[in-house]
């Protein structure tokens, strides 16, 4: 049961073949079996999950009309607040904190009757690409436990990949949904900026952050996306408009006549050969399905990584000022006569990890007088050029594509002492965030050299999220029929009962 898609689970629930309580218990059992090895979860809320499942079961037997995902379990990245449930953002500075309110995303998934199993591990404050920066230890990739699942939403991706949950929610500031989806062989989507409310999403870089869905299939991901998206008066950047029907698009499986643009700058040199090979094959598949493949030029993408590592740290240096040891979270050094400033200094030193400090310092530098124009100001102008490059490219193509990440999953510890090498892993995902558009990663096969999953990235203009699902579903259907099953079914068994 737990290896099925959320859509299949939904059918089984509707037909009465299984109850949500049984389904939830099966996932809690799976977590009990494998999570000591995978470490996807920071907190499992068995009691709350079973209570929600029982409510959905009661509603169903009383004939109430339910959302298609009602009763389906989900794993939630620990960056979103959930009333009364410990929320840490992977940081020591929030250890033990229990929010007094639900984020809008959590309200929406609760209203749909979705069952929240627990909170998943992440790079501290979503700063990282491997989940190794969590204050609570790393998450391990279910495909090879010696490797990282990517990050920062590595816990959510690993939970879905290891059948601990059919669905999960992550957040994507520079690729933190798409890159871990690629590295764990599942589907992940970063929606258009402003499509999903940021109310209750602990901020890293406010102009780039966006929560989004993970699933093992394109349709499952669309079903969750549909629940999450929508206007929210509590988020001033929330789009007030008509949202595309992503579920209908995920059922289309048709790319005939569509123009698909391959971004010249996001392939070739620096991309692992097996990654490039699976990407090229997927392009051939799309062409054989009737899509027209064109090459597009985005010269300013060469500077996207540099611009991102100025803009995101600058915004984070401001956002993380709220962790001041006064109203919630950790407080250190509050002895008789200690000043507020010394308590702040000591708390922020004890509570923040190394990467968070590095980014706060870099952001403080980039925003300081005398350097502002040269660093932050230039980065903001590069951002304009990237938006212009996308506009030109989307005039020639309906969607743009690239490999999601330049490599497959890397070993734990391999890049943790080399920030530049780690940052380079985000090279293909970052432009989407800088432009505020949407992107999907879906499995493109296994790299020959290491038998690890490769991600295929699809990008579409703002509020055209449906195009991701239309192209993604067509490619997925063709690849799954070629492979004789979803890629995830080729993952080695983790022990425990499947």
């Amino acid at each position, binding site marked *: 049961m737990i290896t099925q898609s959320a859509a299949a689970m939904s059918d089984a629930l509707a037909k009465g073949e299984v109850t949500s309580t049984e389904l939830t218990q099966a996932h809690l059992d799976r977590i009990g079996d494998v999570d000591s090895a995978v470490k996807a979860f920071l907190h499992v809320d068995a009691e709350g999950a079973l209570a929600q499942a029982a409510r959905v079961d009661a509603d169903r037997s009383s004939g109430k009309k339910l959302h298609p995902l009602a009763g389906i379990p989900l794993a939630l990245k620990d960056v979103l607040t959930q009333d009364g449930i410990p929320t840490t953002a992977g940081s020591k500075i929030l250890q033990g904190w229990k929010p007094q309110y639900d984020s809008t995303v959590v309200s929406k998934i609760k209203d749909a009757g979705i069952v929240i199993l627990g909170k998943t591990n992440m790079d501290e404050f979503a700063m990282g690409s491997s989940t190794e920066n969590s204050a609570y230890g790393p998450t391990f990739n279910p495909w090879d436990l010696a490797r990282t699942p990517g990050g920062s939403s590595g816990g959510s991706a690993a939970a879905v990949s290891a059948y601990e949950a059919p669905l999960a929610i992550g957040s994507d500031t520079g690729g933190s949904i798409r890159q871990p989806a690629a590295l764990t062989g599942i589907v992940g989507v970063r929606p258009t900026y402003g499509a999903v409310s940021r109310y209750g999403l602990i901020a890293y870089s406010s102009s780039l952050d966006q929560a989004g869905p993970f699933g093992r299939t394109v349709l499952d991901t669309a079903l969750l996306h549909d629940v999450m998206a929508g206007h929210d008066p509590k988020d001033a950047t929330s789009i007030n408009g008509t949202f595309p029907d992503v579920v209908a698009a995920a059922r289309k499986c048709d790319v005939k006549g569509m123009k698909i643009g391959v971004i010249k700058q996001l392939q070739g040199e620096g991309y692992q050969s097996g990654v490039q090979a699976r990407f090229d094959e997927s392009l051939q598949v799309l062409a054989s399905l009737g899509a027209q493949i064109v090459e597009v030029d985005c010269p300013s993408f060469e500077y996207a990584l540099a611009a991102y590592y*100025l803009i995101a740290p600058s915004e984070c240096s401001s956002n993380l000022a709220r962790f001041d040891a006064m109203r919630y979270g950790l407080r250190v050094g509050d002895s008789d006569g200690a*000043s507020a400033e010394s308590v702040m200094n000591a708390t922020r030193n004890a509570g923040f990890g190394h990467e968070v400090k590095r980014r706060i310092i870099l952001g403080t530098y980039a925003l300081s007088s005398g350097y502002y124009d040269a660093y932050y100001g230039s980065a903001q102008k590069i951002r304009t050029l990237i938006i212009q490059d996308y506009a030109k490219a989307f005039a020639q193509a309906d969607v743009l594509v690239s490999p999601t990440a330049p490599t497959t999953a890397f070993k734990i510890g391999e890049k943790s002492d080399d920030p530049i090498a780690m940052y380079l892993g985000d090279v293909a995902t970052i432009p989407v965030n800088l432009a505020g558009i949407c992107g999907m990663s879906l499995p493109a096969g296994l790299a020959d050299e290491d038998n690890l999953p490769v991600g295929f990235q699809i990008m579409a203009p703002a509020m055209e999220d449906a195009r991701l699902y239309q192209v993604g579903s067509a490619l997925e259907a063709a690849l799954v029929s070629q492979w004789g099953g979803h890629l995830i079914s080729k993952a080695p068994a983790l022990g425990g009962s499947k």
Partner: protein
Amino acid sequence: MSSLSRDDVAKLAALARIEMSEEELVSLASQFGMILDAVARVQEVDLDGVAPTSHPQPIRNVFREDVVHPSLTPTQALSGAPAQEEQRFRVPQILGEAE
């Protein structure tokens, strides 16, 4: 090759209200040159006449009617406080009143 000294990092850390250990200051200073070189690539491009983008979408002020909504009780609001006193957040001294 950019570089930042241990003292430069200490000054930034003080601005950011982080009391770093000597070891961390030295290690961060040693990595900073490399990171600054990487991000300084934004200066290689001719940006004359290019407008900066601070946000991917146009931002407008959002207004609502000034009506009272249910909000947190004092107990809820203080539930995460590191220290509290008389229904207030208790904070360490802010001015030098003890001197």
